[in-house]
């Protein structure tokens, strides 16, 4: 097994893992490209359970540890593409949430205890945002769509279509804008909207008809369905989901029993304490950061 990573042209990091095929076969070349992504369902479990951990506590120490975990997992497992940028966006949104929440103190009594309380509630919301920022940055959007069970195939397919057509829509909009400029039609301001929007929508409607014909011609809606190379729920997926589950259960129990100083009061203001066992439980969420890096599915 050989693995490594290199920087891609768009500034992201692409990692690869080459696995020697178990038996030489006609698909030996395919084995090198085998999808090495972690099952998106495992990521979903990680994010949801991590979100629950964040939700059960207002202890800033536990929350800040979650920030560190989210950041580490993000750096180790992010996939190339626009969604990888979302981590930074979520980070900013999280900081914004803290500021806004803290400012709300002016609607109540202004004192140190209240400021701390509002800020910590903001921090808790921000932590959830950051965890989901990581989730978005480490999953391939098409992989998430492929998760849909068989009977939800059609809406999922519509969503996948929307994803794959969107870049074409953007290109179409740019093309139309340029074409109208070259015809001397203004392309700025509300008055210019029809000249831009109508050709894009008309093109879309024609595209939809071609697509529908293509789908029907290839048997869409015959009622039977199988799936090509479904993502496998492998050992990595089990590891991620189970460790996150244990962490969430620990926090849930501790929080309902009032253990581990999960909800330190702010009145009177004091430094909360940290329980080593709870920290260990929290650390289970960092497991995906130590798994082999995900390969990139598509070029």
């Amino acid at each position, binding site marked *: 097994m050989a693995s490594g990573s290199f920087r891609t042209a768009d500034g992201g990091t692409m990692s690869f893992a080459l696995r020697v095929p178990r038996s030489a076969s006609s698909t030996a070349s*395919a084995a090198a490209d085998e999808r090495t992504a972690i099952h998106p369902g495992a990521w979903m479990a990680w994010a949801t359970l991590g979100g629950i951990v964040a939700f059960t506590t207002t202890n800033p120490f536990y929350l800040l540890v979650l920030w560190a975990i989210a950041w580490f997992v993000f750096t180790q497992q992010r996939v190339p593409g626009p969604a990888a940028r979302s981590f930074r966006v979520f980070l900013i949104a999280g900081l914004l949430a803290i500021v806004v929440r803290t400012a709300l103190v002016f609607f109540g009594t202004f004192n140190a205890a209240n400021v701390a309380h509002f800020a910590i509630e903001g921090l808790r919301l921000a932590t959830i945002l950051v965890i989901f920022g990581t989730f978005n940055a480490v999953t391939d959007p098409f992989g998430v769509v492929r998760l849909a069970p068989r009977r939800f195939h059609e809406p999922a397919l519509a969503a996948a279509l929307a994803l794959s057509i969107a870049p074409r829509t953007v290109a179409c909009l740019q093309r139309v804008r340029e*074409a109208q400029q070259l015809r*001397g*039609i203004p392309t700025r301001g509300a008055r210019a909207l029809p000249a831009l929007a109508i*050709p894009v929508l*008309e093109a879309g409607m024609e595209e939809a008809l071609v697509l529908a014909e293509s789908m029907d*011609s*290839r048997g869409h809606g015959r009622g*039977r369905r199988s799936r090509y*190379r479904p993502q496998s729920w492998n050992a990595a997926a089990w590891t991620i989901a189970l460790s996150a589950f244990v962490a969430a259960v620990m926090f849930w129990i501790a929080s309902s029993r009032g253990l581990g100083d999960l909800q330190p009061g702010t009145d009177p203001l004091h430094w909360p304490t940290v329980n080593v066992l709870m920290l260990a439980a929290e650390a289970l969420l960092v497991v995906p950061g130590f798994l082999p890096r995900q390969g990139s599915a598509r070029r």
Partner: protein
Amino acid sequence: MSGYGDIALSFQDVTFTYPDGDRPALADVRVDIPEGGFVLALGATGAGKSTFLRSANGLVPHFTGGTFAGRVFVAGRDTLANPPRRLADVVAFVPQDAGASFVLDGVEDEIAYGMENLGVEPAHMRRRVEEMLDLLDIAPLRHRSLRRLSGGERQRVAIAAALAAGPRILVLDEPTSQLDPQGAEHVMAALQRLVHDHGMTVLLAEHRLERVVGWVDGAVGFREGHATVGTPREVIRTLALGPPVSRLGRMVGWDPVPLTVRDARAAARAHGLIRPVTTADAVGDALAVLRGVDVQHEELGEVLPALRDASFTLSEGEIVAVMGRNGAGKTTLLRTIAGVLSPHRGEVQVRGHTPQPGTDVGLCPQEPESVLFNDSVAGEVRATLRARHVPDADAPWLDLLGIAHLATRHPRELSAGQRLLVATAAIAATEAPVILLDEPSRGLDPDSKAHLIRFLRAHAVNGGGAMFATHDVELAAAVATRVIMLAGGEIIADGTPADVLGDSQVFAPQMTRVFGPGWLTPEQVAEAMA
């Protein structure tokens, strides 16, 4: 019923009228296509060939509505009782714009999509995908995103995706119309392999007969909905259609009418034509000037040179054809002259200053529909004039382009060729001295082509200059006063059509291939022979 297995597709007295049609698009069509046939459907735009193809898998009438009489049987199944999805296991359809027909994002997934719909067992599906990748020679593309394929690659992936579910009949609507000559050869070779080595039945339509007529072994010709069946030679003769060599053959009375350059060479041996004297036409003052222009494209952070050290001048009275492979830089050159791309080095001037889009230069894009947003043809011209604050009392462009009779029609309801003319009128109304057209020959029927040629000549005669990018060597031969050839972003040839096209292996028009450099159009040759 003994001979039943031999017929792949059977059209039995089919008459079909579109919901808003005033005459049948197919009239009493009675054709049987045998298994293993490689059959071409041909005819002018609107003659019925596309309707014919689409009724082979039930898209007509299930996706069009309308009145359908008679029956089409596909491998014994009635298309009226079976919508396309229930014929998916016996007949595959590849539409003209393969890119728009892709449902998923990756090459492998797209190939598997049809099989998923049919509930093919996963292990079998895996094997079939591998087979399709090999059969169409696209294994290196397996993990690519469909968005990043070239036109020829897209077309081959579309064929693989259509065939994966195992149908024995393949129907393709103008599979080479968006490809350069080499790309077209690749696709036709792949189709021939399917017919010869795998016993597939292939039915295709094509405008540019010269590209396909040498490959197929049967033809169905259409005129006003009526079908003529026979060998390609017979059908082309009956319909008076054909590539330039056929047109020449008819003009000078050769019998049989030649179909290929090879046929025509044999017939032409008797006529020893000497190279005609060509002189460059006198031209007026310079309109657009490029001096040492470099243009770069950025894709995924990678800088790719799109134009390198390009220098040339477009003068009043000139019609310049820009030719070259897909990706050679034709569109980049046009957009640079239009002033929407700024050069990284060198300078671009139109009428002595940096070009102003929409006033110095008008450009009709590759998809002419990109500019159409009004609900009438006349409205499109009015919109351009309104943007210039000019009254539209006597707008001559609709007349000039032969579409005055369509003035009140909705542009979206016209044919592709007519839409190009409407877009051209809307751009001509800018009264920019330099008119550029990007790939105007796509989907252009002979009528629209004639109107476009007339417009270009009138524009040049009135002191304007025009340039068009094209793969259509015959259009370049017919109208250009000058040809420039691009390769890898560099201008590698610039001269009269006789010199540039006469010199090329790939881009030589048929008359040049038969009679040698200097001969461009059948009309010119016929005149010399008379």
